[in-house]
């Protein structure tokens, strides 16, 4: 029998975001710390498992210990993320170079993603996270009542315009086929905690002049992504991370598309509507 510790072994990465989990792969796969991991995820935004070396199957198993697994592929295996031109979604992936959360088009966005590194980029390709709970908490109190009333339109078109600012009309119409969604600017979670709902998908703030609304969105994104709320993960092969998609934004840093960088992603179903 391997020696197991009686509690999850972890340490903070930065005061306002991130934890490094040092429990063994066997312990993680056993599910015995799943409740603690869920709790820690919500508290820290992103958990890092350095060189845990999950196989693709183990990553699926680990993800399943934490909640409702969402299949991303027809056979339920982990989804490969690569900028290699053979990937037909590579163009859409370019949107991930800008701060965003996943699943804004759904009223119940996914709870979390697990991502592991198969092949790191030789340089660049970090994944960055910011804690939108901590960013909200730290806002000056005077701003909060007004912000809590606001609603924001999110659309794929907005995220894609950052990548391709001058699309053809045909391209723009394809983007519009993903329906827009209106979400509150501030998510009051069931736990009572609050987080900012922003990112590259945000088009405009309802009932506000569009340029002024955009300014507000730029300010809040700049605020939430300042150094104190962010953690930048430099990948080594075998690293895995999980992030709370309901309380963070994330983005990838630039890397050479031909570098062979290859990541595997699995997802946990959302459990709570943005409200």
């Amino acid at each position, binding site marked *: 029998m391997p020696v197991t510790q009686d509690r999850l072994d972890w340490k903070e990465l930065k005061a306002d975001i991130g934890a490094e989990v040092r429990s063994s792969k066997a312990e993680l796969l056993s599910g015995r710390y799943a409740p603690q991991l869920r709790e820690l995820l919500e508290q820290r935004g992103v958990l890092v498992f350095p060189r845990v070396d999950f196989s693709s199957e183990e990553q699926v198993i680990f993800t399943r210990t934490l909640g409702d697994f969402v299949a991303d592929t027809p056979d339920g295996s982990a989804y490969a993320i690569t900028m290699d031109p053979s990937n037909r979604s590579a163009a859409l992936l370019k949107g991930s170079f*800008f*701060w965003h959360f996943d699943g804004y088009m759904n009223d119940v966005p996914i709870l979390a993603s697990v991502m592991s590194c198969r092949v790191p980029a030789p340089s660049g390709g970090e994944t960055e996270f910011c804690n939108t709970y901590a960013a909200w908490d730290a806002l000056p109190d005077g701003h909060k009542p007004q912000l809590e009333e606001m609603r924001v*339109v999110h*659309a794929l*078109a*907005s995220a894609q*315009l*950052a*990548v391709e*600012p*001058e*699309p*053809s*009309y*045909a391209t*723009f*119409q394809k983007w*519009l086929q993903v329906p*827009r969604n209106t979400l509150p600017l501030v998510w009051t979670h069931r736990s009572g905690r609050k987080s900012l709902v922003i990112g*590259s998908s945000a*088009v*405009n703030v309802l009932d506000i002049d*569009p*340029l002024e*609304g*955009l*300014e507000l969105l*730029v*300010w809040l*994104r*700049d*605020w939430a992504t300042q150094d104190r709320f962010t953690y930048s993960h430099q990948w080594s092969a075998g690293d895995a991370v999980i992030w709370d998609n309901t309380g963070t934004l994330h983005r990838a840093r630039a890397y050479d598309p031909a570098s062979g960088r290859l990541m595997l992603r699995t997802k946990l179903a959302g459990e709570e509507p943005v409200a």
Partner: protein
Amino acid sequence: MATAAKARFVSEELKPKIGSRILADKEALLSGDYADAILDLLEQRGVLVFPEIHFTDEEQVAFTQTLGTFARELRGEEIYKITLDSGQNATAEYLKGAFFWHFDGFMSPMPIRASLLSSKVLSPAGTGNTEFANTYAAYEALSDEDKQHLDGLKAVHALAATQLDVTPEPSYEQWKQWRAIGRKELPLVWAHRSGRKSLVIGNSAHNILNYDPLDGEELLIRLRDFATGPDFTYSHEWKVGDLVMWDNTGSLHRATYYPLDCGRMLHRTKLEGDEPII
């Protein structure tokens, strides 16, 4: 006399709905004798090309002055050097917005009438064309339904919109610098004194007043895509010494990609506008 004059100044169409090439010698152009003909042609054709005319800066200034009121640059210079080399141009960063369709001077009470560009140093072959779209011709080709729909609509133009294309994720500090330039509401359709109408669109247009922002973006993209289609556009591949002049009140323009550090250099002069966008 008529024969001699004809030999000194000949024009030919580049494409049916945009562009003419002017074949004339320097002396004929600098004489001012053809100024009215050039201005008429400019309004009709949107863009005029004077192939390898090889004006010096002084000659370019003098030629510009034959056509109307010369517009100096912000700091009083007569010639603006267009290069993305930040060593030679303090505002090189802003110029990256020029890779997207735009017109110049959306903030001015009267946008400049015309700009003249002389090519001094080329970018590598196949890069750095300047492209023009005729927004009179595009408007005229719209359906009656579209024309009716656009009548009375106004768009908000702002520097921030042009810069977001280049820097989609600015810091708030950066945003505040853009905001300081201000914004301007302009009609989508410009009814010129001449009676002709042109579309007022481009990368400075951020949203349409009293329109849902995403729906407004869709309309702006549809109009820009239509106006910059092959029928209404001319792409100029530069040779050293070429002079190109465009009607800034009835066209959009953009540069196609070129390596930023390649040394490409164009010298620009401008004619003052004399008509507000209404």
